């Protein structure tokens, strides 16, 4: 059983604090993805767990040991680096077996485990080649092989796919997921790509500026973003964020006034959390804003208004529609594609109970951080 626990972990470089007292509990055999824009402290956090960076303050516990002062070699972890970090002068076989050799395993044991890893990752034909003679994808596979032969308590992945081309990235993503199913070790994975995070993670940790913004399963962070940052970071195309103001409507039902004289009712779940006169940001996913009769999901209350579509991007199964409300660009989706001529006026449906409401001054979800 290997849990990883970060308690009030701080990283400082001189005066500059880059990770601010973060707390994180990672369960045994969980696949956790740290995601965030570059410079958010996710790689630094991973490197502190690995022991490649010192921990300035707080505590990191792996299993039942506090590892703050332990060098990387004593933490029983393995790591896959962005640049693969293969040993250039060793063949694939020696690269895979190096850790075991250092740990003084017998030759037959090393051989057995290296062959096993090679089998899992399909490296059989490449065993006697040097890293210089491999393609990017093959090198990545060797780097993963080197991590799994040692059967560590925790796998650490530091943006392992960002050097690969798009097609290979998708392929390797699936392989990593399969690998986790098979070995079932705890995995901590760093990426700036939210698609990778969504597809791989059991739980996603979204970071910004050295803080953790939200922790949750992919669907939790997608359906209940705690603030506008998470809302805009998770999901592609990103969530539309429109400025609005809560106004008193007829019959005591409060409304939210958007630009261009568009008014929508306050969504049911947010009703108790907003007051008349409050400035809010309304978050609408493009999926929830669709022209009438073009793939509207059958989900509860809807509201409709007209928008002028200026640009459309057909993607095959769906088409992204670009429009404007006030000065803000708004993206919608059309699930039954049809040709769009320039500047066509369409009547859009908005699924109201999927609309998110954030406080305009704090950026926080009006429902608060804990909601379901």
């Amino acid at each position, binding site marked *: 059983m290997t849990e990883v626990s970060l308690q009030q972990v701080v990283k400082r470089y001189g005066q500059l604090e880059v990770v601010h007292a973060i707390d994180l509990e990672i369960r045994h055999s969980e696949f956790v993805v740290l995601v965030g824009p570059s410079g958010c402290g996710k790689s630094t956090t991973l490197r502190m767990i*690995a*022991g*490649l960076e010192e921990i300035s303050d707080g505590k990191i516990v792996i299993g039942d040991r506090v590892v703050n002062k332990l*060098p*990387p*070699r004593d933490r029983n*972890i*393995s*790591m896959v*680096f962005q*640049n*693969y*970090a*293969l*040993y*250039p*002068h060793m063949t694939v076989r020696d690269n895979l077996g*190096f*850790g075991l050799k*250092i*740990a003084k395993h017998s030759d037959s044991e090393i051989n057995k485990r290296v062959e096993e890893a090679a089998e899992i990752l399909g490296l059989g034909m490449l065993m006697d080649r*040097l*890293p*210089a*003679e*491999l393609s990017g994808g093959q090198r990545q596979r060797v780097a993963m092989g*080197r991590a799994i032969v*040692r059967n560590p308590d925790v796998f*650490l992945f530091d943006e392992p796919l960002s050097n690969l081309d798009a097609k290979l990235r998708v392929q390797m993503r699936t392989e990593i997921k399969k690998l986790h199913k098979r070995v079932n070790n705890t995995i901590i994975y760093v990426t700036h790509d939210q698609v990778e995070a969504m597809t791989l993670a059991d739980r996603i940790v979204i970071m910004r500026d050295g803080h953790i913004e939200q922790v949750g399963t992919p669907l939790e962070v997608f359906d209940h973003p705690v603030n506008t940052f998470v809302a805009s970071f998770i999901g592609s195309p990103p969530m539309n964020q429109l400025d609005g103001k809560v106004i008193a409507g007829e019959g005591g039902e409060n409304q939210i006034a958007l630009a261009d004289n568009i008014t929508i009712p306050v969504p049911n779940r947010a009703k108790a959390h907003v007051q008349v006169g409050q400035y809010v940001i309304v978050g609408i996913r493009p999926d929830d804003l669709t022209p009438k009769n073009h793939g509207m999901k059958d989900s509860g209350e809807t509201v409709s208004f007209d928008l002028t579509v200026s640009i459309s991007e057909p993607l095959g199964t769906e088409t992204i529609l670009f429009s404007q409300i006030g000065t803000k660009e708004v993206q919608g989706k059309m699930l039954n594609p049809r040709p769009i001529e320039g500047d066509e006026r369409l009547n859009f449906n908005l699924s109201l109970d999927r609309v998110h409401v954030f406080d305009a001054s704090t950026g926080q979800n009006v429902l608060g951080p804990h909601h379901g």
Partner: protein
Amino acid sequence: MSVLTNIKRKMFSEQATPYVLLLPAVIMILIVVLFPLIFSLYTSFTGYKLTRPDTLFKIVGFRNYVRIFSDWDFWVAFFRTVGFLAVVINLEFLLGLGIALLINKVTWGQRTMRTIMMFPMMFSPILVGFQFKFIFNDNVGILNNALQALGITDAAIPWLVDGWLAMGAIAFAEIWMSTSIFAILLLAGLFAMPKDPLEAAQVDGCNAWQTFRHITLPFLMPFAYIAMTIRSLDVARAYDVVDTMTGGGPAGRTELLWTLIARTGYDSANMGMANAMAYVSIILSIAFTYYFFSKLVAARRYMGGAQ
């Protein structure tokens, strides 16, 4: 007239242009390299003595070579050179590696240090020889004076008189002069070294020594081979430092190949014989160069495979 225009046309035709342009260089190489080479090879088969020019045409076949191979003094000088080379290059490598690793740890002033390191290389080897001759002199030398003043020894140590000590003193001068070649090249290697494999090795369970032994050192070896190639050529033809410090003496106990060759060629005026020795000793240089170079070529296969 027509012949001349014909030649002109040929010379300036496009196909001929590269050759015409290369011609001056080729002629220069013929004059300064190829002709002396052939001439010296020829004289090694004659009994050519500088004092008697007519001997230039007295061909003696392989007699010079036969004599060399049965000459005890030559073989002593030959193997002394090989031993000297092995000791000097290994020590220079170890010292240079140490210096490079230390400078790599320094966070400021690396460029300045690199420049300072090169100072010994800027001095003329003859002057380096003279300098160390005075340092190691048994009567007036700084070293003996210092040792006696500090009470470490009463007697004057015969640095340049005892065969082994003299050899050591010469080696010291060589090492002082040229360790920086290793240091500079190895430092360049350390600068070029990717950091990721080092971190991967730490995670893979290596302590500092194992990381150095299994990752850093193999990466640096190609740089060391370059330095070794340069230095093996240098040391195999060592002459100036030896000649100024001991002149190959006392009693030939610091005689290396090239001091022996110079003595044979100029002091004894036995140029034919000296040239024969030179050809044998060149084989030594070629052997060392070939060895280090093939190591280098093998290492280049994996360079650049880290990313």
